């Protein structure tokens, strides 16, 4: 019995040394397997066939009908128009660490992909780190300007300005003087949408009632992909008297549209022109969408990179630059178009400054 116990104790102590042992094994094999950093063959990519492009998504990846898909659309456009040699798209796992994101970018860089685009603010730290390791590879990051470097392009958007326009549209179209906002996850990014929307609605009617709520709280990011929750929240807001609902909730938006359709109210889409991309039976309830042209930003970056003229540092896609806008598909906002364009002009001219934070 005592022996047995001692044996177990020894085994426990061994666990540690085994970890070390595994480490040592790996070390000895090192010369054969190390892919030397900096060996990215990107610069050697023949111009005739175009560059090899790597794209790293955050959680969700291609097929989320929203943010990631917009980036994918930019890549697809570049594929046909720029004749890219090869593309590779990798997506993040749920709840992963920064180290995993870093490794994803590094694998792309080692695989000779250049340029590399990271989609989403969560890549901020990893892009900064990997970009210094691979100075010859061009990187771009969407929605972040904290990661700066000589080979990093930051593609950022003025979501609050676009949201201001649809907020104004909502106020102009609301018959009950009551509109609402459904946010996906309570993050600073989505706060920009809410701030712009509220400001736009109040600019039209100072006394309008604007409800706002979020589907989930970080670190729970399910709010971007939970149509059922979106539907429930929208139903609650409609019952409460709102008759136009703007959502910034990615894949949860489908549920918002369903609720709005059932209540015979109006909805506002986000990121892409959802009167075209949403389920066909729901397209009619979408009076307009706040378009965030991630696809344009991605395409323009790839075009510049292919020509060898990618600009480091932030490129702000604001209203003036056409990076954000409202959509007119379906003709539901044609009657107020002149008013909206007036606001648009005022924002572009700097006459109206749209707040980017609610508080």
């Amino acid at each position, binding site marked *: 019995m005592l022996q047995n*116990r001692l044996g*177990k*104790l020894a*085994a*426990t*102590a*061994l*666990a*540690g040394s*085994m*970890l*070390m042992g*595994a*480490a040592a*094994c*790996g*070390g000895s*094999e*090192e*010369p054969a*397997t*190390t*892919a030397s950093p900096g060996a990215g063959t990107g610069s050697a990519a023949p111009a005739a066939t175009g560059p090899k492009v790597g794209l790293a998504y955050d959680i969700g990846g291609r097929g989320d009908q929203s943010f990631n898909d917009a980036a994918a659309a930019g890549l697809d456009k570049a594929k046909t128009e720029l004749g890219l040699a090869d593309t*590779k798209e*990798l*997506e993040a*796992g*749920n*709840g*992963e*660490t*920064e*180290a*995993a994101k870093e*490794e*994803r970018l590094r*694998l*792309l860089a080692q*695989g000779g992909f250049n340029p590399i685009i990271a989609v989403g*603010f*969560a890549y*901020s*730290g990893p892009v900064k780190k990997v970009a210094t390791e691979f100075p010859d590879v061009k990187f771009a990051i969407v*929605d*972040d*300007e*904290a*990661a*700066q470097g000589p080979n990093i392009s*930051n593609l950022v958007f003025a979501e609050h300005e676009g949201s201001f326009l649809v907020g104004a549209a909502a106020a102009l179209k609301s018959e009950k003087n009551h509109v609402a906002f459904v946010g996906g996850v*309570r*993050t*600073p*990014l989505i706060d920009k949408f809410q701030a712009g929307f509220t400001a736009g609605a109040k600019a039209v009617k100072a006394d309008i009632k604007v409800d706002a709520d979020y589907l989930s*709280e*970080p*670190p*729970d990011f399910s709010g971007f992909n939970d149509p059922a929750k979106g539907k429930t929240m929208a139903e609650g807001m409609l019952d409460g008297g709102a008759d136009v609902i703007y959502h910034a909730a990615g894949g949860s938006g489908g549920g918002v549209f369903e609720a709005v359709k059932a209540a015979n109210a109006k909805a506002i889409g986000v990121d892409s022109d959802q009167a075209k991309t949403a389920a066909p039976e729901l397209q009619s309830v979408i009076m307009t969408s706040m378009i965030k042209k991630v696809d344009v930003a991605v395409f323009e970056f790839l075009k510049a990179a292919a020509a060898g003229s990618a600009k480091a540092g*932030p490129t702000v896609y604001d209203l003036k630059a056409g990076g954000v806008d409202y959509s007119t598909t379906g003709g539901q906002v044609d009657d107020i178009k002149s008013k909206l364009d007036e606001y648009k002009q005022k924002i572009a001219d700097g006459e109206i400054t749209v707040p980017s934070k609610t*508080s």
Partner: protein
Amino acid sequence: MKAAESSFADRLLGRVRLSGLLSLAAPVVAILFAALITSIVLLATGAPPLDTLVIMGEYGVQPRSIVLTLNSATTFYLAAIAVAIGFRMNLFNIGVDGQYRLAALISAAVGGAVVLPGPLHTVLVILVAMLVGAGWASIAALLKVKRGVSEVISTIMLNAIATALGSWLLNKERLAVEVAGSNNIGTKPIAESGRVPGLALIPGTEAKVFGLLFLAIAVGVGYHVLLNRTRFGFDLRATGQSETAAVASGVNVKKMIVIAMLLSGAAAGLIGMPQLLGASYSYSLDFPTGLGFTGIAIALLGRNHPVGIAFGALLWAFLDTSSSILQLHEIAPELVAIMQGTIVLSVIVAYELVHRYQVVAGQRRVSKELASGTPPQGEGASA
């Protein structure tokens, strides 16, 4: 303890152990079974199973991958130990997830707010994390002993509350600061003095192993000693196996529940430490989530044994690490999740099968001996 009398839960949680060669048979059967299922899934999705394994293997032995695997395993190990402490006491602490997230957030905020000399700073952060973890777990413990609320229900609820509370705290008006130009938001970064430097254990790469790897090892040793070498550990295991017997022999079960839950919560508080003190230095929106649930799977995989859990954590971390390389070869990264799930199920099924075989084999031997007239040996089917 006779195997024939053990319940499924006893066998599931590793309270009953297999003897001799059979203890080797179970993991071998499990690995074969998992490999079979994974191969079928790979074939069904049109990827060649053998090539896939070779790709994963080749990538897995690169120095950098080994560092990544060790670092993830450190975190997973702590998570699994936190869960295992509860399991040995028959407590299903599903709340490890909420406990570690809240502990990481608050300890990160405390660590960012103060500057202390070297090791003191680190120790303070770790202590705060353990206290918060234990504190959050104590709610479930008190509900159980005072009101008889099942800890499964209360800890799940507390996870949801921890998420909401964490989100409320992670706000510019409270614990968080804005990162300039970023859409991220996090606690103030912990100063240099509080950070735990990485160790260049693996030659051939610049990547460093978490210094807190040693904390994980120490926790593993502590877990073993506590359970097997102390009066408390004996009482805990006894209570886990039979509450009535423990009461009869004078164990204060309520006290044991509270202490076990507090220990589990304190260990849960450690889960976020390697990442916080070794890599991110701040709790922000992209702090890893869901580790508590990974811990449950790994605790089952390792059958609550400190060495078993170490292997489970390494295997899990290796699979996680190799998911990126799979994507690069056009193999769906979800395959890794399927593999992990299959392995856990296989281990449970294999151990159960081997246990049953052992019981049946024992009975057959006894009846054979009886039939042949020799008196049966005393040890019979004992495990």
